């Protein structure tokens, strides 16, 4: 088996809670990621999937301005349609994307994760080294700017300044590879990037170095 994307969804509102109906279509060893941004009058206080609390990978990331960016993850969410419920302390903007994949390692589903903000770059590049050519990459860009795919990633969910990407297939190499996105309207606005490699089920994970650079 190989990693396969099994579901995408998105939602937004101006409220203290947002519920998104998300479908994981099929397959074993599922992995769910919920990424998004909120106005920074409060933080995300929790995200659940089918009543189960998700784990915060990054929360309340902010480089400047009025926005927090968050990514939550969950192993083995199960096949079917279930609700993702995002809760925050008070009303404000909420923009979130959900993505799920099957055949992801359930012990170490992701590795080489990172997060960084930028206010000036037109291109953001993440250089990652996979431990297996069968792994996938996930990348989320959220905040005050729209993002589009440049190199080695495909934009899968395109919402308002809330863009989720993956490699749309295996990374294909255990050498360092650059994953690039283009970011619109640089200036005093900023966006925040969250990223990691998805580990294929059945292979051992090893922590590798990774780095990120900006190109103008």
């Amino acid at each position: 088996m190989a990693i396969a994307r099994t579901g995408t969804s998105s939602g937004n509102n101006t409220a203290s809670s947002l519920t998104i109906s998300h479908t994981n279509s099929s397959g074993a060893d599922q992995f769910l990621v919920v990424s998004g941004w909120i106005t920074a009058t409060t933080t995300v206080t929790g995200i659940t999937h089918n009543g189960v609390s998700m784990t915060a990978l990054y929360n309340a990331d902010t480089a400047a301005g009025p926005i927090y960016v968050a990514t939550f993850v969950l192993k083995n969410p199960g096949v079917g349609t279930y609700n993702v419920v995002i809760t925050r302390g008070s009303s404000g903007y909420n923009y979130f994307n959900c993505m799920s994949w099957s055949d992801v390692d359930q012990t170490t589903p992701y590795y080489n994760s990172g997060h960084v903000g930028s206010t000036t770059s037109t291109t953001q590049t993440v250089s990652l080294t996979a431990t297996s050519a069968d792994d996938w990459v996930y990348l989320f860009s959220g905040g005050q700017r729209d993002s589009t795919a440049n190199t080695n990633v495909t934009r899968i969910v395109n919402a308002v300044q809330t863009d989720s990407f993956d490699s749309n297939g295996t990374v294909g190499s255990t050498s360092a590879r650059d994953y690039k996105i283009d970011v619109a309207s640089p200036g005093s606005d900023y966006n925040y990037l969250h990223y990691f490699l998805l580990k294929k089920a059945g292979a051992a994970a090893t922590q590798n170095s990774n780095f990120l650079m900006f190109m103008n």
Partner: protein
Amino acid sequence: MKIKLTKREYVGKGYYYNFKNIETGLYSAVECTEEDYAKLALPNAVNPTLEGHVFTSADGGTIKVDSPNGILGLNEYTEMEGKYFVVGIDNKGNEVCLSVEKEQVENDEVDSLIFNIWQ
């Protein structure tokens, strides 16, 4: 440029189911109770249904006003917790609800520049 606004009375928090029409792709909001909204977070929750539609999302704790559907609509404002909340179109074309100081709204008008929230 000034934008003419309609004032609505704040009546509390709103809870809504959102459905997508299978044929047209248009979205509809149907009000629910706080208790119904909370049930969506339970394990194996049974989602609401609407004929010809798919349940896509729900909103909990929105600003509810005295409009026919309870939603603060475009070019409307309301007072909540000592501030005005105004709905308009930002400079990226998105409908947004902004919190503004009371003095920024005069004679039911607001300066369109307040919606230039993106640089």
